[in-house]
């Protein structure tokens, strides 16, 4: 069979200032139906109006708790789920207009559960080579060569390609997943909690690997996680999500030094630090549980749990993302002052 060479990537290197990905007012509402023939009762608002820009070559971390919509946002950016509303552009083109095969090639994804993201019945060669086979880019001996190359990039031996996923440890499996993501030479990789299922010592190895690959290939990452330590280490900018909206987004150091949104404060104070001499600031314990995304609160979606919510304002008006300072945006009516702590805190 004739081997076709990969299509040249349409990267416009000259436009260095233009962001790679622009997200404008992205919304994804999942309908809840009563039954097969009943009309739609309500919507689960997984992503409820997100605006973001991602520059080429940077790593944007997205943190939030379960149910905040970060996974859905990632899938929207990848084009795996259609949006209910809003636009996402990739390299200047709306992703709906880009040829889907082209889209798949330039945006790749690494999943959370390394074991589950690989078909247990396929050899590593088939798993890593599947993107190439499916796109008709390599086959047979050529495929073996390419897979060997990719495996050595991620730090595995080429003869591993004949083994099966269950013979590898968690960290090695995640490396294989990364090799698969790199096989089509993408511009962008979505990392959906890649280290959450790994041990601490292996996590460090994988994070270092991601770092080196990013530098080598000039990749852009979105790193979804719920661990603030990891996101602090690896990302250039961090966005905090709550109930489908981005409540604060800024550069990493800035966010951790001067958090403005009360939720960010609560998150930061809730992380247990693994050292004796961590400043034990007063722990801000939020009351109640996360509201259901099918029925979000009126006004600011955080007001039901916010320690400084003001009745009449926070439960009526929805705050928009506003710039506090260069590169630091917050969606709050009463953002906390720089370097300050929350005026009222429980416990």
């Amino acid at each position, binding site marked *: 069979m004739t081997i076709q060479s990969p299509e040249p990537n349409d990267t416009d290197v000259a436009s260095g200032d233009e962001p790679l990905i622009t997200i404008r007012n992205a919304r994804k509402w999942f309908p809840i139906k009563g039954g097969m023939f009943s009309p739609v009762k309500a919507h689960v608002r997984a992503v409820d109006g997100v605006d973001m820009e991602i520059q080429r070559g940077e790593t944007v971390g997205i943190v939030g708790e379960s149910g905040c919509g970060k996974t859905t946002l990632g899938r929207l950016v990848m084009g795996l789920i259609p949006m209910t509303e809003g636009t996402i552009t990739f390299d200047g083109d709306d992703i709906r207009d880009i040829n889907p095969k082209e889209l798949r090639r330039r945006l790749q994804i690494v999943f959370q559960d390394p074991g589950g993201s690989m078909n247990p019945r396929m050899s590593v060669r088939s798993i890593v080579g599947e993107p190439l086979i499916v796109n008709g880019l390599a086959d*047979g001996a050529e495929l073996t060569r390419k897979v060997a190359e990719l495996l050595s990039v991620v730090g595995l031996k080429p003869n591993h390609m004949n083994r099966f996923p269950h013979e590898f440890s968690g960290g090695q499996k995640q490396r294989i997943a990364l090799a698969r993501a790199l096989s089509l030479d993408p511009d962008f990789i979505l990392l959906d909690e890649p280290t959450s299922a790994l041990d601490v010592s292996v996590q460090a190895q994988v994070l270092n690997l991601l770092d080196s690959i990013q530098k080598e290939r000039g990749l852009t990452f979105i790193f979804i996680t719920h661990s603030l330590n990891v996101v602090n280490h690896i990302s250039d900018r961090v966005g905090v999500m709550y109930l489908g909206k981005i409540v604060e987004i800024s550069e990493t150091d800035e966010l951790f030094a001067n958090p403005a949104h009360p939720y960010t404060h609560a998150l930061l104070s809730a992380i247990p630090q693994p050292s004796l001499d961590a400043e034990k600031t007063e722990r801000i314990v939020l009351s109640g549980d996360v509201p259901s995304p099918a029925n979000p609160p009126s006004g600011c979606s955080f007001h039901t749990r916010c320690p400084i919510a003001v009745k009449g304002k926070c439960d009526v008006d929805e705050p928009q993302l506003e710039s506090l300072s260069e590169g630091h945006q917050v969606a709050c009516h009463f953002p906390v002052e720089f370097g300050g702590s929350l005026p009222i805190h429980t416990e």
Partner: protein
Amino acid sequence: MTWQDGEEERAESRRRLSERLYQTRIDLARTWKIYRRSLLAIVGLFMVLSVCTISIFADDIAVEHPGRDIQDTRDVWTIDYEPQRKEPFSEECDMREQKVSLTELRRWDENGTLALSPTKIADDSSFYQDTLVVTEYRALVDRNGYPLPLGLLYLEPSNHSYFWISDELMENNSINQIKITYMFDNEDMHHWWLPDGYDVCVFGTNEEGQDMFSKILYGSRVSLKIGFTVATLTVIIGTVIGSISGYFGGRVDEVIMRITDIFFAVPGLILALAFVAALQAVDDFTLPLWFALLIPIAFLAVYLRSHIDETLLPKSIAPDSPSDSSYALVRPILLLVLIFAFLVLGPWEYVFEIGESRTWRLAATALALCFIGFLLVVDRHLIDMIPTRGIGTRAKDAFDWRNPYRYLTFRTIVIFIAAATVFSWSGNDEGSITVIENFDRLWKIQIALVFTGWPGYARLIRGQVLYVKEMAFVEAARSVGAPSGRVMFRHILPNAWAPLLVAFTLDIGGTILSASGLSFIGLGAEPGAAEWGKLVSDGRAFFPQDNWLVFFPGMAILVTTLGFNLLGDGLRDVVDPKNRR
């Protein structure tokens, strides 16, 4: 490009083949290791293997063919049946009580008689009797059962098949009929592999004098055939429907599941009754040739479509195609269904009837395939706007003659079988293909059991497909752009079929039991056929005195069903994901 250039590719293919074989070997070793942990599973395997061996070698082991029809259809002769309802290992299997009509002998002025077997019916429906070799002359009674002195009769020393009747008896006109009891050389009915004394009438004989052992051995063939046929057909139908339902989800899933519920509600045995009654007149199942040929053509068309999609008109050269993923898989199916509907209702039959020679039929098939291919290319070209330039060169380059190992795939086998079928059927003289020759009652109950059996598998596969569909690797495959067909056949189905194997083996046992039950009621095998349920039913009248008539067929059913059940249980351990395959 010469043969040498392909050496690298060939080596690579060979290496991958050997890897796959090696992996299969390891898998089998591991399977055996898990399986043999359970003693009951080994017992089950042993039972199943012995039943299968018996059914294969039934001709050699059995001493009597059950097809032997000894029923007197005209009720003219008082045919003396063989040892009726004799106990296992009873002596009387080698014994014969021959009635001799002295009146007849006197008429013909003979004073001796041959030792003859009971009247048998030959293949051409003529009656005959075998000459027996007497080993021991036991008793002599008259018509009313009063014993007569043995000395009245004596064997011819040189020919042990001939009895001389003494003059005393011949002239005694008060005795007109005598019954001679003697043991004869019954080596034909002795099993050579059993010890003497225990080698004849191993399971006794039934009412008509037939050897139960042989009947049970031949019955295994019937039961296993029923079990495997029904199980296989239900698995195929159930898998197809279940995977469609599971994969598409939504409305399609709901509708198919409600239809499945309707089939579930139908009780199997009652439906079997109905089928037998309704299809009473149907004796064989034939398909007209033109219709039958469409089946292999359908298979070839499917592969033609994927060939066109991958090689001749790959999507990767399409400019900007609107991705309407909800119709991605539906459209080609719809297209093929439309084409075939058109062919069935339209000109195919007439085209076919034009000539009856093999050449014409083959040509017609090739024409049909070209027509289908043309329509598919046109569809892709017009709807998806994929350019057709260069299609000729791509068609030439498509077949990689330098690397024959590439074609050692399932796809090639199917294409080969389809082509062979077309070839052989096109040489058919009659205008129809006989699918089932003897559409007897057994077939009808098999159809009934298939009819009610497939919903179980559909449900099973649907559940598994739904479960596997949510796994991350399926999403991963989709995210790299794998088409639905690949996702279905390479990712979902291989991970979903494990419980199917268990259900399959258990179902064979259940089907054998159902079929035996139906034969017991009288619905299954025709009278005289060697089906275990029928044997139990026949022997029921003589229970509990002659309990071997019921016991041995019952044990046979027990052993077979139990064997399959234990096998299924053992397999369940093997496919259990907790055993970390």
